[in-house]
């Protein structure tokens, strides 16, 4: 992954680098190219100008030379010595003439020969240059030149006309003189003072001088300066072997047209007199020089005879042009070699920083995105405003709370979110804030309200933080809806008030104090004020609790215990009221720490003086009760023993009485009369009755003694069993018995059996004289759940109802219904033991209903 990232970065760098460096290098190349071109053009222009100047110079040089030559020829034709000689023929004059010619030749240094020929072509005066030592040729060595073409042509000329021969090499005795001697023959006719044509002056001009001067011009420049005759042969050429082609049979092809094209040559010969062009062969500049028409620096018209024409050409070959550019090209290449890497380096640096910047921007963007995301997700409302109080950003929570969409808020003044009643003053607040923008934390004690889109208000806390950004000063408002908190505070306040009321109205003292040396109360309720018999709460609060202890040691014990255990419960101490009255107090306290870690006690105090007194009495009562209880226990044990004895010992004699009476009745019947038998039977009945009494008394006492074993008892089932036993004992009786099924009670099954035995036994017994006996067991819900046993038997007189449950109380004659009178007393005792009541309703011969309840206390 990391390497991928690195590759990506490398590639990005390369891409950005190339994108920057390539155009820069291309621009560099273009600039260098332009520079090259400009330089080339300039060089060429300079070259062209130079060439033109050279040609001009050459042309002027030629013109100047021929001007001089022309003047010289005419000057000599009018030489005074010559004219004088022609007029006189005096030989002295002739010597003067020779001297003039010699001086002329010596001083002029231009001519190889200076001659005068007569009208027949005979040389009459001649001076030879003789390589710098001019000499007059002797008369005998003078020759006739009548055959020479220039003699003929010149003699045909008018006065002031000059004939000029072609530029060629001097030939002596039909051979080209060596070293070559380029020569131009200039000749003009000579007239005497009478106007008679008398001969001609011939000047052999030493062409080499002209050629040297031309060559000197050419030497200053890179290319060559050539001089061509009208046939295109080089008089002055690129190489001596190529010159004077027309003079040498083997050099006939060495013509300009042959070398550089006949068309070019023709255009030079026939075209513009002066021109310049450049082609693949180089830069050419030429001018045509025609001595006959050349204007020398003279106002006089000059007349040349002959059709000589020359062309001065300069040529710079491409190689020379290139050579002159080579250095520049090298400089440009060096410049490129230096600048290109510099540019590349520059591009690299720029790209690097650019990428750094891009990265930073990307980071900033992502950080901004994160920042915005955070803002959006913030649980608080966030609104950012600019210096003018216009909203520039609002997050989702703020939109939700204020009930606006983002579009409805962006660009709007913040006052849109301020309740109308504060709007007028809000801009001033803003200005104040902007004058001194500081971070204002949330909840800086201000109660602020915000306005929703529907106009409703809600309480808020706002924190402000200014930040200087590219968009100027922005103020970020973080807004928190504190409706819930306000609500909670309100509820808390209500709770506090309720708690305070509650505490103040509590019948026990509630306090808070510090377990320090003095022990002043921090808080007390009204009950504390009452307990301490203080005049007011304030009085009690200023009272040191430490002085309220009857025994200061008690206080120390109390404080030590609370600090050790953290709490104490119902700690009893003796305290003094502010009036000095001693009382007993029970203290319950817990240790707490306040914010600064200081310990204090929250406690409850009860004045237990009364309770103490009561406790003392109860203790006394308990003591006497314990004594009584022990006495009772003893009595009970005695009673137990007594009952046991009764059970055993009283019955044994009865058994003897009954048993032996029976023996007598059975075995001695014949010896007894009726009366005796009757009395014995009565003895037996008495014994048996007494046995019944004993049994019933025992049962009664047993009920008293027995401890209840509480269980769930099915009373319906119990009743059915009792009836079944009764039926077995007296199977001949027809009794209609009905029992409500499912009567379940809580009680002792044995004792409840005794109840049912007695009640049903009574019902059985007292319905014995009914032909259609009915016994019914059921329950009903009056105030309490009431059970009943109903019969349609003999009933009783309600006047005696109060005696019904007394022991040994009988409401019927023994002769009518047997019974001991103890059964209902026993029943009542069982019912009472079960926490119930029993009563009866009846009327004589109307049957009886016995009602009873059980566990009245629990069933309530």
């Amino acid at each position, binding site marked *: 992954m990391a390497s991928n990232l690195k590759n990506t970065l490398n590639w990005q760098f390369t891409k950005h680098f190339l994108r920057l460096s390539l155009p820069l290098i291309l621009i560099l190349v273009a600039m260098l190219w332009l520079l090259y071109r400009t330089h080339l053009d300039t060089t060429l222009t300079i070259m062209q100008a130079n060439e033109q100047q050279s040609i001009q110079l050459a042309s002027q040089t030629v013109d100047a030379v021929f001007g001089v030559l022309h003047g010289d020829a005419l000057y000599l034709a009018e030489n005074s010595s010559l004219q004088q000689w022609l007029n006189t023929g005096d030989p002295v004059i002739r010597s003067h003439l020779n001297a003039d010619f010699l001086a002329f030749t010596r001083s002029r240094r231009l001519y190889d020969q200076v001659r005068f020929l007569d009208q027949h072509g005979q040389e009459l005066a001649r001076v030879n240059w003789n390589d710098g030592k001019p000499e007059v040729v002797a008369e005998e060595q003078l020759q006739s030149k009548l055959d020479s073409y220039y003699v003929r042509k010149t003699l045909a000329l008018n006065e002031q006309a000059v004939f000029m021969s072609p530029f060629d090499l001097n030939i002596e005795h039909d051979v080209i003189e060596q070293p070559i001697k380029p020569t131009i023959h200039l000749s003009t006719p000579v007239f005497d003072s009478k106007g008679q044509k008398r001969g001609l002056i011939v000047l052999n001009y030493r062409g080499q001088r002209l050629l040297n001067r031309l060559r000197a011009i050419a030497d200053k420049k890179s290319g060559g300066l050539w001089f061509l005759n009208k046939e295109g042969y080089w008089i002055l050429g690129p190489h001596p072997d190529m010159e004077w082609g027309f003079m040498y049979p083997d050099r006939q092809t060495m013509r300009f047209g042959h070398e550089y094209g006949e068309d070019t040559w023709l255009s030079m010969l026939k075209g513009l007199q002066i021109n310049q062009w450049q082609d693949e062969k180089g830069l050419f500049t030429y001018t045509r020089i025609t001595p006959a028409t050349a204007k020398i620096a003279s106002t006089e018209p000059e007349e040349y005879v002959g059709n000589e024409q020359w062309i001065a050409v300069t040529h710079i070959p491409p190689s020379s042009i290139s050579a002159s550019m080579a250095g520049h090209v090298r400089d440009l290449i060096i410049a490129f070699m230096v600048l290109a890497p510099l540019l590349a380096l520059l591009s690299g640096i720029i790209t690097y920083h650019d990428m750094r910047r891009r990265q930073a921007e990307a980071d900033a963007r992502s950080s901004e995105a994160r920042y915005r995301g955070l803002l959006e997700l913030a649980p608080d409302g966030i609104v950012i405003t600019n210096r003018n109080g216009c909203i520039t950003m609002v997050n989702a929570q703020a939109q939700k709370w204020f009930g606006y969409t983002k579009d409805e808020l962006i660009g709007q003044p913040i006052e849109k979110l301020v309740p109308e009643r504060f709007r007028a003053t809000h801009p001033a607040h803003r200005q104040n804030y902007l004058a001194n923008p500081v971070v204002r934390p949330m909840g800086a004690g201000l109660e602020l309200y915000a306005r929703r889109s529907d106009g409703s208000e809600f309480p808020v806390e706002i924190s402000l933080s200014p930040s200087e950004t590219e968009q100027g000063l922005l103020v970020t408002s973080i807004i928190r809806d504190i409706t819930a908190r306000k609500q909670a505070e309100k509820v808390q306040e209500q709770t506090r008030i309720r708690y305070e009321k509650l505490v103040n109205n509590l019948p026990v003292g509630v306090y808070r104090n510090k377990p320090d040396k003095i022990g002043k109360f921090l808080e007390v309720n009204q009950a504390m004020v009452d307990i301490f018999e203080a005049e007011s709460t304030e009085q009690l609060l200023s009272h040191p609790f430490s002085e309220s202890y009857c025994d200061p040691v008690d206080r120390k014990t109390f404080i030590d215990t609370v600090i050790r255990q953290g709490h104490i419960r119902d700690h009893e101490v003796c305290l003094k009221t502010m009036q000095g009255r001693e009382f007993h107090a029970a203290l319950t306290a817990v240790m707490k720490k306040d914010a600064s870690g200081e310990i204090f006690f929250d406690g409850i105090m009860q004045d237990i003086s009364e309770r103490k007194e009561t406790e003392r009495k109860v203790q006394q009562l308990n003591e006497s009760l314990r004594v009584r209880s022990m006495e009772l226990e003893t009595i009970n044990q005695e009673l137990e023993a007594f009952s046991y004895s009764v059970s055993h010992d009283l*019955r044994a004699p009865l058994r003897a009485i009954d048993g032996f009476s*029976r023996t007598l009745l059975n075995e001695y019947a014949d010896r007894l009369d009726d009366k005796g038998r009757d009395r014995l039977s009565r003895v037996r009945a008495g014994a048996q009755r007494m046995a019944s009494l004993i049994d019933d008394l025992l049962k009664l006492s047993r009920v008293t003694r027995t401890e209840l074993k509480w269980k769930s008892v099915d009373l319906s089932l119990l009743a059915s069993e009792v009836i079944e036993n009764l039926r077995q004992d007296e199977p001949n009786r027809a009794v209609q018995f009905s029992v409500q099924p499912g009567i379940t009670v809580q009680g002792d099954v044995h004792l409840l059996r005794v109840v049912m035995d007695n009640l049903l036994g009574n019902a059985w017994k007292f319905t014995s004289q009914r032909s259609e006996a009915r016994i019914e067991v059921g329950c009903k819900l009056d105030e309490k759940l009431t059970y009943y046993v109903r019969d349609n038997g003999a009933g009783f007189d309600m006047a005696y109802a109060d005696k019904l449950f007394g022991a040994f109380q009988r409401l019927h004659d023994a002769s009518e219904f047997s019974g001991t009178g103890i059964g209902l007393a026993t029943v009542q005792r069982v019912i009472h033991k079960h926490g119930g009541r029993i009563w009866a309703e009846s009327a004589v011969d109307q049957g009886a209903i016995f009602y009873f309840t059980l566990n009245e206390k629990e069933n309530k």
Partner: protein
Amino acid sequence: MNDKTILLVEDNPDDELLTLEALEANRIGNNVIVARNGVEALDYLFGEGAYAGRDAMDWPAVVLLDLKLPKIDGLEVLRRIRADERTRLLPVVILTSSNEEEDRLKGYTLGANSYVRKPVDFDQFIKAAGQLGLYWLLLNEAPRG
């Protein structure tokens, strides 16, 4: 059946006579040995004291045991009978005036085979004695130790 003895443990002579008469009335002619207190009853059963040398293997068919006895009371006698391996399975019927539930429970807990209250009505006593005889002497073969 007549060769089997019945051990009657009874301190009251009247009750002794009445019991004997009741047995006689039911034609139960078995030899009845009467022990007049708990010690005597145990001596008889285990051939000790006054009964030393008695064939201790001649167990009575049934022991009719009163509870309220001098010296050692009936419940203690029963406990000792049941504690001895030889008499562990001897039929013992408690025959008493007491109708106390506690006595009855203790009796059964200590291993009494039956519990008969001596009724005051002698006719009923005869009836009860008859049932006793039928059951313990005729129907129920005393298990041999």
